């Protein structure tokens, strides 16, 4: 084995150890600490062989826009009331609900509801401060939000910057597991809004088609959450797998994509066909399971 090969292997092992260290440094304190430490040794090896494998999920703004384009309207009554803020005491609860409020904020911004945007922004700021990432919600950032309250495009841009910066701040503070829970809370809230709003829209086929297409993103979120150690993450993972089980009742039909490329302009169009259609029974079950999980998150 040459020195280069040794270095490559060593680098991968280094990554594994780095992840284990980061996870153990940032894990929740409490009685489950021994359990947390004992599991990754076996469980993390297959995951970290891909220390360089990442999973992307749609942002809450993206989810909101997709629902809007599919014909969904704005319904404030399905969102998490800001009065619930006082219920969030544990780190897990704060993280998940920062995700929930980020989704409610994004959904409100997509539908240009400036009053609700500011209200959810204040709740998000409070949770972010309690999670130690107050710098993302600086007075300058809050001022920019207020100034652009009536300008949808600017608002969406600032919100995407804000939550990206929060996410990065958590990772830089060795709180990667918290950042994953924020993402999970946002995705569950996005699904909740979609499934609830669909019930109130007469022509809801396009909304349900979108919910069917969330399947791949749910799988990516499951992969993402499974890289996190700790009982908080296991609990969330178990809930997400309940939704996945319903999606898995039907198969996805995908044709091999064909790509058309303009190499001068560097524009790619990826063709192909896919069918993520859900049955009425699956839609009903997903709606119910998502509502149960979301209720557990907002009323811990």
């Amino acid at each position: 084995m040459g020195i280069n090969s040794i270095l490559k292997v060593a680098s991968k092992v280094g990554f594994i150890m780095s992840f284990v260290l980061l996870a153990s440094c940032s894990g929740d304190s409490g009685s489950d600490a021994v359990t947390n430490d004992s599991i990754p040794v076996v469980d993390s090896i297959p995951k970290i062989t891909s220390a360089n494998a990442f999973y992307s999920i749609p942002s809450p703004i993206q989810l909101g826009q997709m629902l809007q384009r599919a014909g969904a309207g704005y319904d404030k009554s399905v969102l998490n009331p800001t009065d619930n803020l006082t219920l969030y005491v544990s780190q897990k609860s704060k993280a998940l609900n920062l995700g929930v409020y980020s989704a409610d904020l994004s959904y409100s911004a997509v539908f240009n509801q400036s009053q609700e945007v500011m209200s959810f922004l204040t709740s998000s700021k409070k949770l972010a401060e309690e999670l130690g990432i107050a710098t993302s919600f600086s007075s300058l950032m809050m001022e920019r939000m207020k100034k652009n309250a009536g300008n949808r495009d600017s608002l969406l841009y600032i919100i995407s910057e804000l939550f990206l910066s929060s996410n990065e701040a958590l990772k830089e503070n060795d709180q990667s597991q918290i950042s994953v829970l924020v993402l999970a809370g946002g995705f569950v809230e996005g699904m909740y809004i979609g499934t609830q709003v669909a019930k109130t829209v007469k022509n809801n086929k396009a909304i349900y088609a979108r919910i069917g297409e969330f399947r791949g993103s749910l799988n990516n979120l499951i992969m993402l959450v499974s890289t996190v150690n700790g009982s908080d993450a296991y609990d969330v993972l178990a809930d997400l797998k309940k939704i996945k089980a319903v999606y898995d009742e039907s198969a996805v039909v995908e044709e091999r994509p064909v790509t058309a490329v303009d190499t001068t302009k560097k524009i790619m169009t990826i063709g192909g066909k896919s069918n993520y259609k859900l049955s009425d029974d699956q839609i009903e079950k997903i709606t119910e399971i998502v509502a149960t999980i979301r209720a557990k998150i907002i009323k811990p």
Partner: protein
Amino acid sequence: MKNILRILSIVLIFNTASFGQCNGFAKKSFSKLKPYLNTQQVFGTVLLNGDKTQVSSTFYFGDEYRLLISADDKLGKIQLNVKDANGLVVYSTKAYGSIMWDFNVESTQDLTLEVVTPEAAAGQTTDNSGCVAIIVGFK
């Protein structure tokens, strides 16, 4: 064995320090994303020559995407492979210093974006290492 452990220790320190560095490295690319919105996730990692990293994502019909991939100059020119849900390559780019592609999908697809760094140049005794950052924007 002692030497291997020594190498592992050095690499461990190097890698732990590199997480923060790569986050900062990724941020430098953000201005190029406009007018697309970021997806609120950035993927940054340290790679060696001849290494790869990947991002799995669902790309939704109706959304337009911009993909930005930046790599440390020390790594050389990087290549992007787009893989379908079965892991089959549907498109490979040429090797570039950094990559910026706009794309869309004709139907919602689960795709994997794989970034490959070049093998060490002839005569190079050890692999170079450097940050690689992948950012996806949408509108």
